[in-house]
């Protein structure tokens, strides 16, 4: 937990934060409404004798009281899919509508891409991209298991992504769930901090900046880009969004989020960020007993 000490000045009740990071996380699943309603899914779980708790902020997120959430009838049918509670936040903030064109540019293994398809009633075009061919097979498997017919899978580097392969030249919305140092996943993965270094953060931040710029360029004026990571490092969060504000036509916008969270930072380590970054959300493990996440919502403007 040593690397997390650097966040002591910015996190309220830091000791509770550290204590939460040391507790392991239970099994959360998302109801896949492409294949079943929430009501049917809950009835099926009850029939099987699997106890659940429904998240207050999102009726489609369930905490299951079982050690093997994959060995349930609801999982076999694709009614449910394993997804950490806080990982269901970015697609909700993206708020896609049926019929739209949406790009999930770092999509594997596909939890959020299939969640986006479900939020669109599986109508429209969801382009799920990932640069890692090995992870593409997991993405494809999940998309088919969950019955997402609106989803197309591509394997490219998001930083220089070409839309020439499609019949359209801009997306309505884009999710950048960026590769990151994953500090916020420590409760799921106790090894998450093993290779932590400031050098790693700095190199991954460079990639993040390249991806967010391309995401904004590939999204139409007035469209939405959501930037998220599962890490606490401001270098990978506010500083990346600040870079997008400096280099591309966009602004940070406010959004409602029914989970407890803290505002984005406007300063870190001698750097100042635009005051609009207060509209971003920092979700800490001790606030809702979840993993950690950062989410910022951008509107694409004229250059």
């Amino acid at each position, binding site marked *: 937990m040593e690397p997390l000490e650097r966040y002591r000045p910015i996190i309220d009740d830091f000791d509770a934060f550290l204590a939460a990071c040391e507790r392991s996380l239970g099994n959360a699943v998302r109801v896949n409404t492409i294949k079943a*309603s929430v009501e049917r899914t809950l009835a099926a779980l009850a029939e099987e004798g699997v106890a659940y708790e429904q998240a207050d902020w999102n009726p489609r997120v369930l905490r299951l009281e079982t050690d093997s959430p994959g060995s349930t009838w609801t999982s*076999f049918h694709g009614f449910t899919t394993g997804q950490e509670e806080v990982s269901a936040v970015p697609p909700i903030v993206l708020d896609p509508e049926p019929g739209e064109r949406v790009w999930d540019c770092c999509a594997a293994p596909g939890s959020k891409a299939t969640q986006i398809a479900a939020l669109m*009633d599986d*109508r429209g075009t969801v382009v799920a991209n990932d640069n890692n061919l090995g992870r593409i097979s997991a993405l494809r498997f999940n998309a088919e298991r969950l019955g997402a017919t609106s*989803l197309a899978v591509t394997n490219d580097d998001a930083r220089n992504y070409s839309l020439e*392969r499609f*019949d359209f030249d801009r997306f309505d919305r884009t999710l950048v769930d960026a590769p990151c140092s994953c500090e916020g996943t420590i409760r799921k993965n106790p090894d998450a901090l093993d290779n932590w270094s400031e050098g790693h953060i700095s190199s991954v931040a460079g990639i993040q900046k390249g991806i967010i710029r391309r995401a904004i360029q590939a999204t139409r004026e007035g469209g939405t880009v959501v930037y998220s990571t599962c890490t606490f490092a401001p270098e990978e969060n506010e500083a990346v969004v600040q870079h997008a504000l400096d280099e591309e036509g966009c602004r940070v916008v406010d959004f409602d989020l029914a989970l407890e969270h803290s505002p984005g930072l406007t300063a870190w380590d001698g750097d100042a960020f635009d005051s609009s970054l207060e509209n971003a959300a920092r979700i800490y493990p001790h606030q809702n007993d979840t993993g950690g996440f950062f989410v910022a919502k951008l509107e694409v403007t004229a250059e």
Partner: protein
Amino acid sequence: MSDGRESDERETNDGQRFDRLPATDAERTVDGRATREEVVDLFADRFGIPPETFDDYTFWEKGAGKIWIYGGEAPTPLRIEAIGMTCLRTRQEHWKPTTDFVQRFGHHATECVIELDREQARRFATGEDQELEWWDGDWGYLIAAHEVGVGPEGRPVRDGDAVDGSELVPLGVGLYVHGELRSMVPKGRQRDLES
């Protein structure tokens, strides 16, 4: 689908790219490729799935005889990893629907649906073959289904094209021959479940 080709010019299937299925036989330019009409007719004739179920979908071939169903936008041909889901294997004597397709669209079926009790469903999900002498319908590929959870009254308002169209929920594809139902659930989708 006029693309300036001579009508007698034939192409071969390129297994590395997605090609949209021709609407009908008259528009076919690749030997052996299924047509949209044949695919929709198969689902209607064999399983009673209304053809209009697929009005908003396109069908594609990538890989020899592997047919995909897609609801989004894309030009043809297209070189990407996947669009929508695989739905059917053609280029063999009996066309075989996929488990994932049947789980997604099988609730529209009215024919060749074999209803299993919970223990039979459990064995089906693990990939086991089982003697089911009581089936007196057609032999060949069937949709195996069982009752799970509540019926259509639980349907969501903005929750998508859920399967809650019927009481029965499809498990996958089975092959019925000689009094035996063989589970076609692929290995990666098989599960050990409680009955």
